[in-house]
């Protein structure tokens, strides 16, 4: 029993502290550097330790220190309790959801690289990740600011609409592989079709992948769906009144969210840690597979950032209309076609 708890703790420390928080911090650097490249700028390059700048990689650390020492402002008429809890409520769920993501294959029959091998599988991820909405909504509600309130209203209706589209796009994948367990899905994806094509989700469910990417960008509230924090009209949306580390929690939760949907997409559509033609238990194979998983996640992160810095923002009613008029019907169509094909196939 004690051993189990210790192992779980070790996995959590590795996952949450090393990978997620570090990853989110580095993503903030990647985002700034990448936007700089796209926009013909140099990007962050000033923060240094003993004159060493390392391409501006110290900036996330500098940002973190700055955030910690900023004044923690609470509006006089804010709902203090909700105002206090809202950032946590938006920060913790995406972290928790990572429990269902396998970082690598089972080693010696044990899931060393997957925090929770529960029977809920990826449903756990979907359920937990949705809780984050409450954080944003409550933040907007408790701030006693009209811009925050409108941001909160937009968040709740947008995420509600796109949650449906997201889930619909996943159902097809679950049907094809006949399971909701991440490791089983990855195992099923490592089979080969016609002897050379891996049965990755992107091959078997291409439409679902497009729907998934669209709704996951909406879920992470980034352009072109960044209505809840549309800076030009709503100042900063639900986080308008937040400062200091509480704002940083919203900020980080956005990046953890990007990591989450990218890792999720990698597991569902790109075979997770699977590398075609590579199997075995040797340590270097496992290391390669973990590396492959991180690379796939990184590629999806890259895709999201590319979209973020290329397209303008949609209008609120257009976003909701897009969700209900295109995403959900196409999700249903994908489901129907998948069901028919599967019925004929088997």
């Amino acid at each position: 029993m004690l051993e189990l708890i210790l192992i779980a703790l070790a996995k959590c420390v590795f996952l949450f502290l090393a990978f997620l928080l570090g990853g989110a911090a580095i993503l903030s650097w990647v985002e700034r550097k990448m936007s700089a490249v796209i926009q013909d700028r140099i990007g962050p390059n000033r923060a240094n330790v003993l004159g060493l700048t390392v391409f501006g990689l110290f900036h996330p650390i500098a940002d973190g220190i700055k955030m910690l020492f900023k004044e923690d402002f609470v509006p006089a008429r804010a709902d203090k309790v909700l105002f206090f809890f809202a950032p946590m409520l938006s920060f913790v769920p995406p972290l928790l959801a990572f429990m269902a993501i396998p970082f690598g294959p089972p080693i010696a029959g044990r899931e060393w690289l997957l925090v929770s091998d529960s029977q809920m599988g990826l449903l756990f991820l979907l359920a937990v990740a949705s809780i984050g909405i409450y954080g944003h909504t409550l933040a907007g509600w408790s701030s006693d600011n009209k811009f925050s309130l409108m941001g909160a209203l937009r968040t709740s209706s947008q995420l509600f609409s796109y949650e449906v589209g997201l889930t619909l796009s996943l159902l097809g994948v679950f049907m094809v592989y006949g399971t909701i367990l991440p490791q089983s899905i990855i195992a099923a994806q490592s089979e080969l079709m016609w002897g050379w094509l891996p049965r990755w989700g992107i091959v078997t469910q291409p439409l679902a992948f497009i729907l998934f990417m669209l709704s996951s960008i909406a879920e992470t509230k980034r352009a072109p769906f960044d209505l809840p924090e549309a800076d030009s009209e709503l100042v900063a949306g639900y986080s308008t009144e937040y400062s200091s580390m509480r704002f940083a929690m919203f900020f980080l939760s956005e990046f953890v969210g990007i990591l989450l949907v990218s890792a999720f997409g990698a597991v569902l559509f790109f075979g997770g840690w699977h590398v075609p033609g590579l199997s075995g238990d040797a340590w270097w194979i496992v290391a390669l597979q973990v590396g492959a998983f991180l690379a796939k996640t990184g590629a999806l992160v890259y895709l999201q950032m590319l979209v973020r810095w290329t397209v303008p923002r949609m209008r609120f009613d257009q976003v909701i209309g897009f969700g209900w008029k295109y995403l959900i019907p196409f999700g249903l169509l994908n489901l129907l076609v998948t069901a028919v094909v599967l019925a004929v196939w088997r």
Partner: protein
Amino acid sequence: MSHERLPMPDLTCREMLLQMGPSHPAMHGTVKLDLRLDGETIVGVDTTIGFLHRGFEKMCENSTWNQCFPYADRLNYVSPAINGVGLALAIEKLCGIEVPERTRYIRVILSEIARIQDHLTAIAAAALELGGFTAMLWAVEARDHYYYLFEDVTGARVTLSYCRVGGVRNDLTPDFREKFNRAAAITERLLVDIDKLLTRNRIFVDRMRHIGVMPAAQAIDWGFSGPCLRASGVPYDVRKDDPYLVYDRVDFDVPVGDNGDNFDRYLVRMEEIRQSLRIIRQCFDQMPEGPVNHPDWHVTHPPKSEVYGTIEGMIAQFELVFRGPLVPAGEVFQSVEGGNGELGFYIVSDGSGRPYRLHVRPPCFAIMQSLETMLMGTMVADIIPTFDSINMIGGEIDR
């Protein structure tokens, strides 16, 4: 089966009042909108201007005519060169003097460069606030090359203080044309890029099309001018209809829109940038060599060698600086095609070296009046492209 409805509880709905500005990211140029909202739909807009009022017109009454030019640069600070040209033309009209040929071309070239800057800024701001950060930075980068040109010629990037009564401060630099060609090449490449990024971008078109519509008849009633009027389909351009300087000698087209919506205003601006480049190139070809200032020392400063070397030069300099050029008594109105419309200067002189009264007709004042009409019934997010396509400039509307 009963068809009776359930008794409805008496729900009271109130409109939400939302103050946008004066310090709000979208309200650049400090203006305040008091919005009445039904959900996200706008049912009322109350515009408050005046947050940037500096008393430009009153300040001018206490300055010599030439001292007004630095103030005028701060009217439309996005296209400062045009303001100086307009004021100079008005004063010269009252004086009844003609500036040398070369100066007329220089003024047109600088005005058109300023127009390019103005339109690039308007497009960039619209793109930025619709979330297209990349397009904005590209446009602003292209605009910067023109600022370097101004820096070469005038020593300043925005507050040029370049025009004078009877001429300009100095001639263009020898490599001006070459540097302009480089900047123009960058702009032309940018226009292609922006076309790819925005003009055919479904999201951008959806945000701009059929928003902030202003039909031609109404636009005239409101007193529209400039790109906003032309987007409504009225081909009115001061440069064509009441040519000043050398606009009647150059060949250019006046683009007009069909619907008068935000997207048409954007397209008109894009095309006007191309036309401005065309005008400037023709001006370079036609421009003669020669002096840039009126030879009469009663209106223009004598060269420094004369000031320090001759008593006449010394006196002329002294009188121009302390008394100002004597402008005959009378009143005159002169308008030029500014960055966002017809920029008019109405001046009254009592024959002294200072204006008796100086009034500016800012183009965006007339356009801002109609903001409520354009926004009524649209959504909160539609304020952004509409306000940006008007291209309201605080320095000009408040003076």
